[in-house]
């Protein structure tokens, strides 16, 4: 593809040493020779294998846990329950003052999603750990579950997470993150057309080829070396320190080599319990998700529901945009309150709309906790927005690309969340896209610039 250098020519430097030059990846030689060391590429004498006993129910009270048969199973070295975890109720984003703590490392009185961890088996072999896990008897009282955003927010819905008290996250701004700009009702009143549509998405699993896991080695120094494929070394270090009530100096996280992450390895799930296992047994511990666990247990991208209502003029100008966004956090917060906040800030998209109203809600359901994934809180919103843009263009009889030129944000425009637009390049990207794809666009749009408005 031809590199068009006329765009932003005055901002370009062509004498840079590295930018614009092909450079081999520093890690690729290890990859192609099979010598890159991933966390699991270690054989340690005395290694224990950790296997989780997980809830088969979406929502249930735990009446009793019987470990007697599992404890007698050959090869079992130790069984961990909630009582063994020093600070069992935690939330990852407590590090940036997002609370309350709302999730258990190991379940105590309740499970809130199918797959929730209850008991950790440590055994000499993977096989012994699996067999013992099947011998743990948990007495459940199954509770009614909410499995969608609409069910969660319906009047009288069962409460998913008592640490919140209602099935949504309560921000300092109230039941949602809010953006208020201009007068959206006046905008609708003056619009030639109004279009309201609802968009939905399901959870999406990252499916990295390397599953989530870690191997922990108790060192003679009293420290614990944790070989991990986390994408968030310091989140892991600090949250583990909190959960285990252990000085951070005793925790040595070794990582940085991740066999595919895409956001799926930013939660702090495997490390604290594996380090606890190493502490209580004095032996190295391996906790590696099976492929089934990776697909079912690791947090996916959140399901979302988006209601978008737009007022548009016959000449193509969008004069009002109203968005109700709902992000399905699953049973626990993890990174979703932040995702819903990003979602609010992202609307109304890369378009200049004078009247904007956004409510973005983080909703709790009895589903697998969702968390980070490439542009979480934003990507699904963009899907919905751009489908909506096509529908609006059809409504006013305009070409969909020309419709976007009319509404594109440009330098100096005030965005709905009160950040002035700087360094916009949407116009230029669309001009180049039109040229590259031979999409016919009226000459006046090809003369537009992000740097200034015409006339």
């Amino acid at each position, binding site marked *: 593809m031809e590199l068009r250098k006329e765009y932003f020519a005055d901002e370009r430097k062509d004498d840079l040493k590295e930018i614009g030059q092909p450079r081999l990846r520093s890690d690729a030689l290890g*990859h192609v*020779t099979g010598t*890159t060391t991933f966390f*699991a590429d270690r054989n340690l004498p005395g290694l224990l294998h950790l296997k989780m006993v997980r809830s088969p129910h979406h929502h249930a009270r735990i009446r009793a846990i019987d470990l007697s048969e599992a404890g007698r199973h050959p090869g079992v070295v130790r069984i961990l329950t909630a009582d063994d975890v020093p600070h069992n109720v935690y939330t990852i984003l407590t590090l940036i003052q997002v609370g309350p703590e709302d999730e258990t490392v190991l379940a105590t009185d309740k499970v809130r999603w199918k797959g929730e961890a209850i008991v950790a088996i440590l055994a000499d072999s993977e096989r012994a750990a699996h067999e013992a896990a099947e011998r743990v008897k948990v007495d459940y009282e199954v509770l009614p579950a909410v499995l969608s955003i609409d069910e969660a927010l319906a009047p009288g819905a069962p409460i998913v997470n008592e640490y919140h008290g209602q099935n949504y996250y309560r921000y300092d701004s109230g039941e949602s993150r809010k953006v208020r700009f201009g007068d959206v009702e006046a905008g609708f009143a003056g619009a030639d057309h109004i279009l309201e549509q609802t968009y939905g998405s399901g959870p999406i699993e990252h499916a990295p080829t390397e599953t989530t896991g870690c191997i922990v080695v108790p060192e003679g120094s009293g420290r614990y070396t944790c070989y991990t494929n986390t994408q968030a070394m310091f989140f892991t270090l600090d949250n583990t320190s909190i959960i285990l009530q252990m000085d951070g100096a005793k925790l040595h996280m070794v990582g940085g080599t991740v066999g595919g992450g895409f956001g799926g390895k930013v939660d702090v799930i495997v490390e604290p319990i594996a380090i606890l296992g190493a502490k209580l047994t004095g032996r190295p511990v391996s906790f590696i998700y099976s492929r089934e666990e990776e697909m079912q247990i690791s947090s996916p991208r959140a399901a979302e529901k988006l209601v978008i209502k737009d007022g548009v003029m016959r000449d193509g100008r969008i004069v009002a945009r109203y968005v109700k966004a709902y992000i399905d956090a699953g049973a626990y917060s993890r990174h979703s309150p932040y995702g819903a906040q990003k979602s609010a800030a992202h609307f109304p998209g890369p378009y200049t709309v004078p009247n904007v109203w956004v409510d973005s809600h983080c909703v709790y359901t009895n589903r697998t906790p969702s968390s980070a994934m490439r542009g979480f809180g934003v990507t699904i919103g963009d899907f919905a927005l751009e489908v909506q843009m096509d529908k609006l263009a059809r409504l006013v009889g305009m070409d969909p690309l020309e419709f976007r030129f009319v509404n594109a944000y440009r330098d100096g425009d005030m965005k709905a969340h009160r950040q002035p637009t700087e360094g916009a390049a949407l116009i230029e990207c669309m001009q180049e896209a039109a040229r590259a794809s031979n999409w016919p666009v009226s000459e006046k749009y090809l003369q537009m610039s992000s740097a200034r408005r015409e006339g």
Partner: protein
Amino acid sequence: MKKVPVQFTLNGEDKAEFVESGATLLKALREKIGDTSVKAGCQQGTCGSCAVIVDGELRLSCLTLAERCDGAAIETTGGLAHGEVLHPLQRAFNEGFATQCGFCTPGMIMAAKALLDGNPQPSREDVVEAISGNICRCTGYEPIIQAILAAARANSLSAA
């Protein structure tokens, strides 16, 4: 658990081990022999990360019993380079940006080698078919396909 003696060559070197009856070749290579170039991605035959070559044929080591490999010649990506001299496939993957996270790479290279060993000048369709059992979640496959075709061209040049 009953132990079974197994002897095979790995990248031309003699190996002898006692493995648990029923143990996979994947486990034997990684945990007994210490060849961690073979990756455990799914351990259910769906991702191709553990692919190796057994007696000239591409095999998923997670679905192959170690005890069935007695007397076999096994090749892995860990044995492909000669010192610092890379195999043409390794060179092409490196220079063609065909790796990102690198986890699928050893299995992908084995699938490609099995192809080129039997079909030195494959078509693009042949390449796509040959790596159809190997999942890559980073690259979108195109750089991998291009790297394999580049390695085939390099082979034909060096043969000429």
